[in-house]
């Protein structure tokens, strides 16, 4: 059966040009970028080129990019690294209730270690309020970590306002831009971010590589100790092929970004239009206005998400319920709980459709038609 993949917020297919870059390097350039000989120097050249182009693409400087094993490591390094380095200056951290687990769990760990963490509420559209933020902020605050855009519902946070507010505050501003990068304009100067996380596999790059932007002068304790790579802030022999692939994926994501947004919005609107035509009763979780163009979280009236996802999979359509769940975990999405509260029916009937490279308007129609068919079967 031909698979229709509409789960690009989970991960994305690797772009053929990215594959080319990776395989070329894996085939011909195995050198250790720290070696003094010609073989090593060649690898160092790839590494430097990648760092240069990535830094440029987000308005950063060459030395402000730390390559990591992905978004999770970047987030962990940002949070643990800043808190360790800043703990003399305060004990308070601000985040939200809808962060990715790679931010949420490190923050919960900080609570266990005696830090005071504010988990900001969100409204029904999945956004925090600046008033709440302002109230939470104290002289004791050392870190604010708030995602650029949410991975489950696509809601975009007021990161520019937060960045602006923190210009005159000791607290560092970290934003997890893993889901937004490649879809929204991400420029660290304009945002006013001190730290920013990105992962390759959400932008048609490979898994296992990402980066953390760290503004020059930011205090950050290293996390992985060993060699002197990444200016001693992240030890370990550099994964040159993946890093070069990340740079290529970044370049591809940034160059066609505006056009891609238009295409994705059209696909999204076609899906919603077709659902209306087919008489499917649904609600949009999140905000179309302040949302990512490719993520659509829908609550579908009267169906159970478990049966819905399996039926879609059996029809060859790959979508998800938001956060990946294991072993039939009943844990409802923490994002939807934060938006709607415990016990809301939307916790049990919501699916996430996320478009990306390769999707067409026909795909949107096919998904809507299949959804209508399944709803008809399950509800009656």
């Amino acid at each position, binding site marked *: 059966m031909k698979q229709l993949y509409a789960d690009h917020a989970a991960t994305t297919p690797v772009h053929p040009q990215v594959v080319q870059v990776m395989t070329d390097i894996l085939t011909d350039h195995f050198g250790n970028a720290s070696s003094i000989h010609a073989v090593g120097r060649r690898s160092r050249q790839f590494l430097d080129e990648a760092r240069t182009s990535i830094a440029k693409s987000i308005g950063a400087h060459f030395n402000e990019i730390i390559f990591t094993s992905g978004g999770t490591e970047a987030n962990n390094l940002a949070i643990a690294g800043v808190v360790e380095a800043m703990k003399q200056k305060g004990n308070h951290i601000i985040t939200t209730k809808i962060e990715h687990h790679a931010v949420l769990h490190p923050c919960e760990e900080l609570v266990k270690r005696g830090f005071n963490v504010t988990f900001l509420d969100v409204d029904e559209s999945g956004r925090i309020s600046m008033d709440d933020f302002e109230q939470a902020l104290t002289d004791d605050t050392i870190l604010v970590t708030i995602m650029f855009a949410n991975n489950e519902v696509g809601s975009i946070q007021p990161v520019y306002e937060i960045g602006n507010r923190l210009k005159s505050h000791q607290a560092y501003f970290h934003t997890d831009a893993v889901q937004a990068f490649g879809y929204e304009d991400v420029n660290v100067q304009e945002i006013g971010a001190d730290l920013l996380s990105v992962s390759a596999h959400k932008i048609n790059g490979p898994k296992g590589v990402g980066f953390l932007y760290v503004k020059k002068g930011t205090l950050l304790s290293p996390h992985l100790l060993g060699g002197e790579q990444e200016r001693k802030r992240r030890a370990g022999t550099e994964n040159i092929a993946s890093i070069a692939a990340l740079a290529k994926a970044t370049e591809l994501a940034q160059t066609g970004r505006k056009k891609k947004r238009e295409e994705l919005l059209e696909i999204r609107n076609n899906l919603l239009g077709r659902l209306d035509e087919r008489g499917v009763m649904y609600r949009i979780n999140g905000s179309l206005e302040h949302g990512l163009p490719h993520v659509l979280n829908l609550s579908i009236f009267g169906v159970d998400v*478990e049966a819905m996802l*399996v039926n879609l*999979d*059996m029809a060859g359509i790959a979508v998800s319920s938001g956060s990946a*769940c*294991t*072993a*039939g975990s*009943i844990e409802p999405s923490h994002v939807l709980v934060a938006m709607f509260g415990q016990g809301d029916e939307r916790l049990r009937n919501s699916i996430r459709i996320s478009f990306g490279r390769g999707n067409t308007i026909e795909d949107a129609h096919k998904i809507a038609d299949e959804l209508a068919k399944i709803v008809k079967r*399950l509800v009656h």
Partner: protein
Amino acid sequence: MKKSPEETRVVVGMSGGVDSSVAALLLKQQGYDVIGIFMKNWDDTDDTGMCTATEDYNDVIRVCNQIGIPYYAVNFEKQYWDKVFTYFLEEYKAGRTPNPDVMCNKEIKFNAFLDHALKLGADYLATGHYAQVVERDGEVKMLRGIDDNKDQTYFLNQLTQDQLSKVMFPIGNIEKKEVRKIAQEAGLATATKKDSTGICFIGERNFKEFLGQYLPAQPGMMVTMDGKKVGNHDGLMYYTIGQRHGLGIGGSGEPWFVLGKDLEKNELFVGQGFDHEALYSDSITATDISWTSNKPVPTTFTCTAKFRYRQPDDNVTVHVKESGEVEVVFDQPIRAVTPGQAVVFYNGDECLGGATIDKIYKDQKQLLYVG
């Protein structure tokens, strides 16, 4: 017209054990459109974050990938709590010995889970139970599993004709050791996995400790039938009729056994000798009767019955009362028949249905001391 296997979708309830693994493998080999689904009914995540369900689901994933079938998980924790665990605690509170496996099959596996399978377009639900379904005399009959030692019809006694018509038991006609062999030859990841024992949600844990978390234990006296104190008990719910172990009564003579309970006085009746006469009864009444057939049942008939899992059958006469209760009269007195357990009826190999043992009688007098 029956559909061909290729057009027949079968959902296999997979536990991560060898039996359901082989059930799925056999169906796949027979050409069915097979889907493996793991049911999560209980969360036992411990302090280290380990959860048996996660480990078991990982085994399901390995096996399904080996067989080449899709796999999913579904959660019935709430239904299990409401329908099975609540019943389980209520029965213990009432001084009886419940059978959660019977209830789980009735309410979860062949009800909520069956509904879920049908929602996925399944024609049948298959499980790795040792039982057989055959079409005979225009309906579906449930027969004992070929492997005498493993037959699980006792736990399936509440299944109705409607349920049985949508069920497959692919390993009911083979022996356990053959199941292991098939798994080993196919190289299935679960081929040598240990069989689960005991009540599923308790697993290998200490039963006393587990139950004590949910019901307050009230220690009291152990007395003989004529009221002589011989020791102390930890709480009546920890004991079942005919039990020998864990009484801690020393002294001379034959070993001690649990004979009954006095809930009001919180006393446990004990007596010496496996064959203590107070352990024997000759008839019972039973409730929640369910028959596997839709055909009318005669008001009185003879058949064989089991009062406990893995006990040999006894000859009995069944009287179906107008109230819906049944009275079961034994040909010979039977030892340690226990309220709360199931009585299951058989005609030869066929399981006719079953009920919950309610009141116990001897010489037409109710034995109030067994509960």
